């Protein structure tokens, strides 16, 4: 009979998660005990908790051992560490962006940060999960708080729509994905990714494996808002509080990509004939449709929503060329991680400036940005820098992200990969048009309503903008800064 064996727990490896859980419990307690008197402290606590969780990540990185627990279901390797650091830093920037936004609005504050940290906790697990069940648990841990956060503007109809849409489609996607996972488990008899890889073997796929893989991939295609599974994203992004929009479009999307990388490049590695064409199509239509619809947007948040759909398309592209790279699939993983890191800096920055401007204009309509340069030149220049970074114009960070993607596509040197590279190139030209329209509005159009009162920017928001701006520009000038980290980001398997 099976007897319970105490699993070997490596507390150092779990330290980031433990610190984060400690922080979020503390947050809950403080909010419970001190109620309104401690409202001001909650955001600081959340921010400090996130930074504290970074410390064990650094010690683990210095230590340098790959650690594996629970029969290979939970792994702390370089990939996990890099992604955890990205999640924590992105989370920290979101906390900075939220501080005044949430503090000044009529929002629950303690719970907000509790939810945010819970979601981040799920992401940390995701970065280490190497098992279908841990992936699923991570996904739900990060998603359920996010559904609630999306509807945090609770008296706003659009907020309710945002939350409900996100929730319903998210649950639907989870169900599809779980069904796929059950099929995979049925075939291989294991939930650990490496065992699945061995169990699935390689060569001709039987229909049940094909269906299983398709369902799992499609489940995560919802999460990363790939076309045609993107329909929730624009409405959710528009209705959610803007810091949460930034969080969803960066951290939550990155978590989806982390899961895809783990599943596709570990578990399904032997069956690329199933998922390679799928990813090719997903990537091509996601970037094209996202960009074309973004062209028509008149609201900056919706535009950034569609832009983030398109950006997901670029990140899906390296999946479509697995097996064709001179240095093995690890090149594709690195390209996606590089893109994720740079995308996080520039997209968070763009949202942070939108939040700052909306403090004055109370609107995210493109027209409300008219003449911003006249009364807030700094913000206008920074937002221009962020959108042109997203467009991939050197010397701003985005160019290196695009280059990383194109690099692997050209390296693959199959006709299909080359065609996809051309699709990426053409798309980045299309995208320039709407990114530039934001800059045009701010710098070349008259002031909206003639209202030139300056924009006041609270310190924490300014800090978040500054962090993003410095990283965006530094990465653009010296890509080595992050290339070194993304270069480490590969699995042990």
């Amino acid at each position, binding site marked *: 009979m099976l007897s319970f064996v105490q699993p070997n727990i490596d507390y150092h490896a779990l330290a980031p998660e433990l610190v984060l859980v400690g922080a979020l419990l503390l947050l809950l307690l403080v909010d419970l005990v001190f109620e309104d008197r401690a409202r001001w402290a909650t955001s600081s606590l959340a921010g400090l908790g996130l930074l504290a969780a970074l410390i064990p990540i650094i010690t683990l990185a210095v230590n340098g051992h790959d650690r594996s627990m629970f029969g290979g279901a939970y792994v702390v390797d370089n990939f996990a560490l890099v992604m955890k650091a990205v999640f924590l830093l992105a989370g920290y920037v979101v906390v900075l962006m939220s501080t005044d936004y949430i503090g000044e609005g009529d929002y629950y504050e303690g719970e907000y940060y509790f939810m945010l940290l819970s979601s981040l906790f799920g992401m940390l697990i995701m970065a280490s999960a190497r098992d279908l069940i841990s992936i699923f648990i991570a996904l739900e841990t990060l998603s359920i708080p996010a559904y609630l956060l999306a509807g945090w503007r609770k008296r706003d109809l659009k907020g309710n729509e945002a939350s409900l849409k996100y929730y319903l489609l998210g649950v639907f996607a989870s169900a599809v994905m779980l069904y796929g996972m059950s099929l995979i488990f049925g075939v291989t008899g294991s939930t650990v990714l490496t065992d699945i890889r061995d169990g699935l073997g390689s060569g001709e796929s039987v229909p049940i494996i094909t269906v299983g893989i398709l369902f799992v991939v499609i489940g995560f295609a919802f999460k990363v808002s790939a076309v045609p599974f993107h329909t929730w994203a624009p409405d959710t992004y528009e209705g959610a509080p803007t810091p949460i929009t930034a969080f969803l479009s960066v951290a939550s999307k990155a978590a989806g990509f982390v899961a895809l990388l783990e599943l596709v490049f570990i578990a399904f590695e032997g069956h690329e004939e199933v998922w390679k064409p799928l990813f090719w199509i997903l990537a091509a239509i996601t970037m094209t449709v996202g960009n074309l619809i973004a062209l028509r947007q008149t609201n900056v948040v919706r535009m950034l929503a569609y832009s983030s759909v398109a950006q997901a398309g670029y990140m899906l592209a390296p999946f479509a060329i697995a097996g064709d790279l001179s240095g093995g699939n690890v090149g594709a993983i690195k390209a996606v991680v590089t893109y994720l890191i740079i995308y996080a800096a520039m997209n968070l920055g763009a949202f942070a400036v939108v939040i700052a401007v909306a403090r004055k204009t109370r609107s995210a309509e493109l027209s409300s940005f008219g003449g911003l340069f006249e009364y807030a030149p700094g913000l206008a220049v920074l937002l221009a820098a962020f959108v042109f970074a997203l467009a991939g114009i050197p010397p701003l960070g985005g160019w290196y992200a695009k280059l990383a993607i194109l690099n692997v596509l050209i390296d693959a040197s199959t006709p299909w990969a080359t065609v996809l590279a051309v699709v990426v190139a053409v798309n980045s*030209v299309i995208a320039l048009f709407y990114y530039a329209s934001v800059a*045009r509005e701010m710098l*070349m159009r008259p002031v909206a309503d003639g209202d030139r009162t300056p924009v006041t920017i609270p310190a924490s928001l300014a800090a978040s903008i500054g962090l993003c701006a410095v990283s965006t520009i530094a990465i653009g000038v010296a890509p080595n800064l992050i290339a070194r980290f993304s270069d480490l980001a590969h699995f042990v398997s």
Partner: protein
Amino acid sequence: MNDFLNDWGLTLAVFLPLLGAVVMMVIPRGEEDTHKIVALVSTLLSGAVGVWLLFNFDYDHSHKLQFARNDSWIDVINSRYHIGIDGISLPLLVLSMFITILVVIYSWNHFPEPHNPKAFLALTLVLEVGMNGTFVAQDLILFFVFFELVLLPMYFMIGVWGGEQRQYAAIKFFLFTLFGSALMILSFLALYFKGGQTFDMPQLIQVAQANISHNTALWIFGGLFMGFAIKVPMFPFHTWLPDAHTQAPTQGSVILAAILLKLGTYGFIRIAIPILPEAAHTWAPWIGGLAVVGIIYGALGCLAQTDLKRLIAFSSVAHMGFVMLGIATLTPVGINAAIFGMVAHGLITGMLFFIAGSVKDRFHTLEIRRLGGLLVQAPRLGWILGFCAMASLGLPGLAGFWGEFPAILSAYSPAAGMSEALFRTYMVIASVGTVLAAGYLLWMFQRTAFGNPPEEFADHHIHDVHGPEWLAWTPMLAGIVVLGVLPGLLLNITNPAVMAAFSRI
């Protein structure tokens, strides 16, 4: 001292303007004079380094890369901070520094609406970084970054300080060039993977040809062609140019004409042809064909223009056609002519745009029909316009001649293996182009400068050329004459480098 120059000279020349721009960021917007001084000083410093380089350049070995630096930059993709200059890049680097200084001087009291010298000059400085950097880069990725660095400042310069249709013109310029460079970067990456796992230009010149199959090379060259031809611009990709030039502020037009267009032709000479000579061979007849179409089309376009600036813009299309024809012959004569043509066109057309700007300042219109009698009202301005028109149409003794005439001549005997009949046809067509050029330029000069001032301006007091204009223009006018009389000054620098790079094709 020389060690310092060898190690840091080029880096300083490229990045000193950036330092100026950073300093300007911390100075409040209101202190306009300080901004002007900072901008002028940083361009002058960069120019001084340029002069210093000019004096220390080893002219006997102008085919060798000098003042080179090769440091690590992005290790992960094997791209390095490799810079250096030889006889091909030196003239263009100096031209770029020279023009920027003059543009800053001209700007002294010529800030277009909405004024804001801080932003305007800072953008000019960033532009200079991009232009200088492009001419010194010896690594494809570095080249790409500098090549693209000019886009944002020029976009804003046209879009913020431009004319009525500025927003349309600005985005058109941006989209066209970005489309080209998106395809160009794909070709760069293909060169890396197929050519020998390096982005280093001198190394690629050594190894790429042997490693890449002819068919692949044709495709790669196609991508490079799109990137550079749109920038030149060659017919049929030229449509962004008249709009950009017409709408850009004077300074923007000058920089665009004098330097930015040269980034494209320079790309052909520095990258596309030396790295993939065989593919260039196959492409050359087509490039030559487009070049002569551009010559004729540009000239006919000029004849149809009613706006002075638009006319000069179309004349650029024609002149760059001569440059491209010289390049398409793939002969040392043709390439030398092309480089000479690039410098000459930079000086002459830059001057013409300066004059157009000053005319616009005085008459508030550039419609040729409404102008006239410039020689009566502002004789000096009028004669300078006449002088530049003569230079532009290729009058012997002025710089324009040495760009145009040898380019036509070189088409008589293109590189071995290419159809002589075809290129001689091109030669004839191009010669017709010079006649047309004389036609449109003289006609333009006649309509704007001769006769009596039109009634609407008859009572106006028109200020003749004034201080900053003299300061900015004299060096350019002198350059046009000196290069016209002593073409050897430039050809002696370029020829050894060209011979070394192109004699093997």
